[in-house]
């Protein structure tokens, strides 16, 4: 699903984001990307989304080489990747249903399909009764659920989460993790960057540890350590 071959990213001037990374993640896998702040987790994710180009190496996502992808097709690439962020990134002026619907609008889906799919997915994340609330009116955990719903409503083959539980208390975090786990069970590849030690240890999934831009550890059923 994701292949990084000798990928380096050097920011101007001479700040190393990633340093010769080789990672392969299979379709349907659940992987944690762990490391301190500044270890390169966000660089890894932003490269996946083709927000910028690597300085060296090649990246393949879902069989497509990102270097050879034209700029005009980048939006279509991103539709294949659901994104969940630490700060939720919800549209503050749109209610919950419209926020989720936006991801469908973007793909040009007809209104009728949108009206059907949005309540469905919001039921799934447990927010069926808050469809018409604005993001401000929800708790942090609920907002993150909306964000997960939006990421998953297109049924992407890959879901990327950048510190999704970073702003949440432990109990709420468990809820979000369960949601991601369920999404993974449907066959979606899930890549989650985190420094939530407890969560990683509890899940016993693949752990890729980064430090100063290098992979220092990559093990199945690993621990945070």
């Amino acid at each position, binding site marked *: 699903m994701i292949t990084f071959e000798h990928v380096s990213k050097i920011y101007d001037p001479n700040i190393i984001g990633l340093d010769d990374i080789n990672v392969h993640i299979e379709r349907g896998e659940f992987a944690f990307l762990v490391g301190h702040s500044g270890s390169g987790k966000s660089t890894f994710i932003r490269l996946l*989304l083709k927000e910028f180009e690597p300085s060296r190496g090649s990246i393949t996502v879902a069989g497509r080489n990102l270097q050879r992808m034209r700029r*005009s097709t980048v*939006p*279509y*690439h*991103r*539709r*294949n990747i659901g*994104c969940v962020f630490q700060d939720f*990134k*919800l*549209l503050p*002026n749109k209610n919950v249903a419209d926020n989720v619907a*936006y*991801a469908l*609008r*973007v*793909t*040009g889906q007809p209104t009728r399909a949108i009206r059907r799919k949005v309540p469905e997915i919001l039921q799934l994340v447990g927010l069926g009764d808050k469809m018409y609330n604005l993001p401000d009116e929800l708790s942090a955990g609920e907002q993150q659920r909306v964000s997960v719903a*939006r990421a998953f409503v297109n049924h992407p083959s890959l879901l990327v989460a950048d510190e999704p539980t970073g702003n949440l208390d432990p109990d709420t975090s468990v809820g979000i993790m369960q949601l991601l786990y369920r999404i993974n069970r449907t066959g979606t590849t899930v890549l989650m960057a985190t420094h939530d030690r407890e969560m990683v240890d509890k899940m016993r999934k693949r752990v890729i540890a980064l430090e100063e831009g290098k992979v220092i550890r990559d093990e199945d059923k690993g621990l945070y350590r």
Partner: protein
Amino acid sequence: MQFRFYLSEAVNSLLRNWVMSVAAVVTVLVSMFVLGLGLILFFNFQDAISDLRSKLEIEVFIKNTATQEEIDALGEEIRAMPEVKSVYFVSKEEALETLRESLEGNEDILDALSGNPLPPSYQITLEDPEQIEEVASRFFDNPVVDNTPGKDPPDGVKYGGETSDRVLRVTTIFMIGGSGFVVLLTIASILLISNTIRLSIFARRREVEIMRLVGATNWFIRWPFVMEGVISGVVGATAAALLVLVANHFLIESVVEKMPFLFNATAVPTFTLTIAIIGGGALLGAIGSTLALRRFLKI
């Protein structure tokens, strides 16, 4: 294109930032109103000028000694000229009659004359008044024309040379000046709309970032902004068009009564003008927002 979605996005954004929207609409309103007034004046002046110009004519006086054949031959020659729109022959008797009418009350002066000293003449109007000098010059050396020998310019041909020159010069200056003014106003409107859309983009830059992340194409993100500009333009211009119509009705038409020689109520094609103003507003909005998008929406 998901027209309804874009439209509702644009309208929502306009309502949300209503202070900014009102500013943009008022800006367009003022610009288009001034533009509209300018156009009314332009139409009226153009009408007045073309009226004046169509009245410019060449008078060719014929020697009293000329035979009827010579007179007819000259008439044929004039009619054969491609620049000539119409030719009218004024006989000696008709010339005297016209003079008598213009003397109204003092006709007895004419009684002092022995016979009729007035020469017959041809009155010529041209298709294009710009050629008046050139056409007139063709009669300077004609033996049938009543030119006093050695007089320069020849006195047998009258074409209001000075007057026509001045009218033509004023027309040109007015056209150039008017166009310049309209261009300036148009640029000002575009810049102001562009600035409003720029502010709207800044206010929503976080949203734009999110749109990109969920895979919105560039045009999916741009369309609502373009529509925002177009809506501001159309709303402002529609209000301006109404004001212009009102102004045309009350101001200009009252002037027409006092100065009918300069203003002509039928000179302004009201329907065309309204459509032009509203269409112009839409165009200004589209150009303004496109400019802002190009410079400030990096996607």
